[in-house]
């Protein structure tokens, strides 16, 4: 087990009436890549600001390498911040950008030189040291920005949506590069983003926040497969999870889940065996991801769970179908399927829920029960 590098111990930050961050507890391990993810206003930027020293927590402790650093000013924290726009000097070359902070501190020349060369090697920019920063491609800029922060040898890196201003294709390439670089450097990185796909793809573990509260902290795969509540279930994954309000009943020893209008009904005795008694005869939200809904477009046997196609979105290797259940047109369900024949709008099809992949959500507490 790795050791804990950075500990957020019951951090709270209050601005006037607003509790921006509420009792946040997070342990980040050495060499870990952690993403803090949430919609705008969830408290992720406030958290980042407290880590970097731009804000002081109202209560709680930030503990870095077993030292409480709550009140240390940013420059004394051993934490390196990388901004969205990198904030490098366009008129200087790569070498000068890397050397800048050491030169300001009037370090001896040969010390600066050997440090710059060492860092340049690590982030693989040795071959472009003489190039002007302004003429670099985005991949090189990212590496220089990380290198510039590495010069001061921080023990943790904070990144504030650094890929936000790149176009879509570049982002995909850059995030792969960043992830590999982090593994090669073996540095602890904390990355703040609102983009769930980015968090999924980059992080060893994701911290999902909403309304100042920690919702879940887990590996991407576990968050995706086992979300703890409706917010996380709906926020992670694209196209988003389908939610259908249903009723749970016990009928002759079987646990049956039916939509409110009776458009479908299924036996969930197997997956629902751990549900506690109190949930029976109650409303329940069925959550199912679009890829766990299959459709039968061709040979229809004409019975239950019929649906009509509202919309077809071919996406190349896959296709999103938006369908309405028959007799229950307000329940719109998305299915992510392989593209075979492309059905037309209004066509009648059959949909199948993969039972072992369903989630059950309590409508009051919004907790995921299965």
């Amino acid at each position, binding site marked *: 087990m790795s050791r804990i590098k950075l500990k957020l111990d019951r951090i709270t930050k209050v601005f006037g009436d607003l509790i921006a961050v509420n009792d946040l507890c997070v342990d980040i391990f050495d060499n870990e890549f952690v993403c803090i993810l949430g919609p705008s206003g969830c408290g992720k930027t406030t958290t980042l600001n407290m880590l970097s020293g731009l804000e002081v927590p109202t209560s709680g402790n930030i503990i870095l390498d077993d030292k409480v650093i709550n009140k240390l000013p940013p420059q004394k924290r051993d934490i390196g911040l990388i901004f969205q726009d990198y904030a490098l000097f366009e008129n200087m070359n790569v070498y000068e950008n890397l050397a800048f902070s050491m030169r300001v501190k009037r370090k001896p020349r040969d010390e600066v030189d050997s440090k710059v060369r060492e860092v340049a090697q690590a982030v693989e920019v040795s071959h472009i040291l003489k190039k002007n920063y302004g003429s670099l491609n985005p991949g090189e800029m990212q590496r220089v920005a990380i290198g510039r922060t590495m010069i001061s040898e921080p023990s943790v890196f904070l990144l504030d949506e650094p890929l936000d201003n790149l176009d879509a294709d570049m982002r995909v390439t850059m995030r792969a590069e960043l992830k590999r670089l982090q593994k090669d450097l073996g540095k602890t990185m904390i990355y703040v983003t609102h983009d769930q*796909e980015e968090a999924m793809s980059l992080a060893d573990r994701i911290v999902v926040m909403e309304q100042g509260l920690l919702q879940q902290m887990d590996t991407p795969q576990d968050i995706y497969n086992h979300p703890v509540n409706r917010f996380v279930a709906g926020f992670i994954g694209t196209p988003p999870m389908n939610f259908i309000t249903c009723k749970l009943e016990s009928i002759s020893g079987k646990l049956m889940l039916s939509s409110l209008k009776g458009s479908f009904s299924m036996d969930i005795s197997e997956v629902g065996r751990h549900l506690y008694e109190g949930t029976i005869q109650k409303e329940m939200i069925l959550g199912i991801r679009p890829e766990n809904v299959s459709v039968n477009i061709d040979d229809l046997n004409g019975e239950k769970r019929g649906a009509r196609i509202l919309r077809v979105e071919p996406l*190349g290797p896959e296709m999103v179908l938006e369908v309405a259940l028959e007799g229950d047109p307000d329940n719109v369900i998305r299915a992510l399927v392989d593209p075979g024949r492309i059905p037309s709008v209004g066509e009648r099809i059959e949909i199948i829920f993969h039972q072992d992949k369903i989630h059950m959500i309590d409508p009051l507490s919004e907790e995921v029960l299965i």
Partner: protein
Amino acid sequence: MATIKLDNVKKRFRGDRDLCSIHGINLEIKDSEFFCLVGPSNSGKSTTLRAIAGLVPLDEGRVYIDEVDVTNIHPGKRHIAMLFETLALYPNRTGYENIASPLRTRKTPSDEIQRTVAEVVSLLGLEHLLNRLPSTFSGGERQRVAIARALVQRPRAYLLDEPMGALDARLRLSMRGELKRLQRDLGQTMVFATHDQEQAMSLGDRIAVIGGGVIQQIDAPQEIYLKPKNNFVAKTIGKPQMNFFECGIANEGTKLLLVNPAFRIDITSFKPDLPGKAKTNSVIVGIRPTDIDMSDQEESQDWIPAKVHISEPLGNKQILDFKVRDLVIRTVVRPDVSYKLDETKWLNFKKERLHVFDKETGISIL
């Protein structure tokens, strides 16, 4: 109801204008079609839309709406509504006044304004926004008000220029659905310009891929995805992007091979006519990340050994980047595939899904 036709439309901008020049655009958009123009920034999408709307004087070429030449007709008389990325709502006017503004400009009688606005408002469900100022609207609400303002004009066609650029990912997804349903209900022609291939794929009845001020290909979404005419189209459509490798064509005994320092692919039975079609011995081979099989062992001698370079789980799938020498090969695999960094796996390109492009022109030669 309208058909739109562009016949060899040219417009050159000198100096650094925000708009990109177009060099002879030919398009025929059918009545009640949802037509998407997709291309990277500075490809000429906006200029093409503006040419249809009449907002830029043309250097050459004609624009026809419903088979009538409108090239020299004033934009206001073309009866076409255009929606911009910025949405351009009046910040000091209420929702109602914003929606009514085009009718006021036209000096429509006020009872007719009221009736038209009321109709559109109920269609889009905007009742709650009528007395509020745009600064209090959410992103989606601004979007809907801008659409409503276009609808009240009862135009013959709609032109939309990146209308969802400013929305976050979740909202974009739901607006996309709304827009498509709206277009179907209205049954009117829409031309939608975007840099986002996924939006274009999911919305368009047909897509035109545009690049460098020239139309590269026009086709149904799935057709474009499966049969890109050149490597620009192949690169623009599909996510993650297609892999491209420079390869030589080689004969070895009876075998026909695509050769590259990192791998050799036997294409004898799949693309036997390649040498006749390729102008030179060197081509660009393209394969989509979803068209590569992966295995823990060497299934046959054709499989390529590759090291796991980086992995990105995305929930229902994962992107795995492999390294073969200096080459990065991107693949999409099932979410439950396990691996270690730098572990060796074997890859196989699905041969029937290989694309081959001319090295000089980038044109697909198969």
